């Protein structure tokens, strides 16, 4: 394994370190929080994946777990928390409410947290099983290794680095879980930003 490092780029090494040292900020608003506790506690033990330490300050976290229903009224708070996190940062929408609004279809509920922050991995389920969360975490780790996180792509594009091929086709990102919600307003913007970054 050590030899591989010598032949790989610095970026790959840095991403390898990043993916096993995720500091999460749980933005818990609803019943999904119970399932989140289960994942974080001893039985399912998210620590096995290097993401055991919840930081309750966004400034010390790089992984935002949006756990539960987001109302329109919470939108500004969620956006502010995302803005306060240091880059590179990743976002996981935990459960259907955070992903799409779930079964709430009314005046108060935001139809998916991706209306205000870019989401890297969506976890379906109401609430999701802990295994699904671990699956999503591993998926996110793959994404981090490849440099495909939203925030990684933005930074790379700004610095004029090559962005991963997958990143310019955001709708096809990801082997199992959907990454781009059909109603995400930012998906085309992301596409344009990357196309520009590659020029």
């Amino acid at each position, binding site marked *: 394994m050590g030899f591989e490092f010598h032949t790989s780029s610095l970026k790959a090494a840095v991403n390898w370190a990043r993916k096993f040292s995720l500091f999460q900020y749980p933005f818990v608003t609803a019943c999904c929080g119970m399932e989140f506790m289960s994942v974080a506690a001893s039985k399912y033990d998210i620590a096995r994946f290097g993401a055991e330490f919840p930081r309750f300050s966004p400034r010390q976290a790089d992984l935002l777990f949006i756990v539960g229903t987001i109302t*329109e*009224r919470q*939108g*500004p708070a969620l956006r502010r928390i995302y803005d306060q996190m240091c880059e590179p940062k990743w976002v996981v929408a935990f459960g259907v409410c955070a992903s799409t609004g779930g079964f709430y279809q009314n005046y*108060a509920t935001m139809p998916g947290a991706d*209306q205000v*922050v870019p989401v890297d991995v969506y976890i379906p389920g109401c609430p999701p099983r802990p295994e699904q969360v671990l699956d999503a975490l591993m998926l996110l780790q793959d994404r981090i290794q490849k440099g495909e996180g939203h925030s990684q792509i933005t930074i790379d594009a*700004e610095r004029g680095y090559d962005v991963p091929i997958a990143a310019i086709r955001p709708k096809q990102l990801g082997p199992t879980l959907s990454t781009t919600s059909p109603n995400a*307003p930012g998906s085309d*913007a992301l596409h344009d930003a990357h196309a520009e970054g590659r020029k």
Partner: protein
Amino acid sequence: MAQIILDRLTAQFTAGEVIELGSALGNEWARIKRESWTTVAKFLRDDPALKLEMFIDLTAVDRLGLRGYEDAPRFDVVLHLYSVSHKHRIRLYCGVPEEDPSVETLVPIWAGADWFEREAYDLYGVRFKGHPDLRRILMYPEFVGHPLRKDYPKEKRQPLVRRQAGTRE
């Protein structure tokens, strides 16, 4: 269950303050004239035989387009009261028309009515005259309209913040 409340109401208010009253499934109810809303409420709380000292609930009903109620006022304010002393309860209605959706506040009589009236104001737009602090309680101050009114579009959202295409994320 609590026929005494209805009897006392009919005996006390003879000038049409009580429009209608009845009993259904063991629950007594009365429909009160809007102008007499606080007078009747105060009587129910203070009468020694009734002593409905506990405020249970206050909300509103929008009957827009409901068949059989075309001539009735559009909104009903619904009030539930309970007597801890006598262990009986009653439900009161007060019709509130669309043109002037307002009624006197009950906060001076039961302090607990405060947030319930704010909620009815927020979601149905019923104004409670004399309320000490009639602000929205659930929706944000920027929200326009009253979402539980039947003519509010079911899925109309009023976002405070959205991602903007072309901005750095």
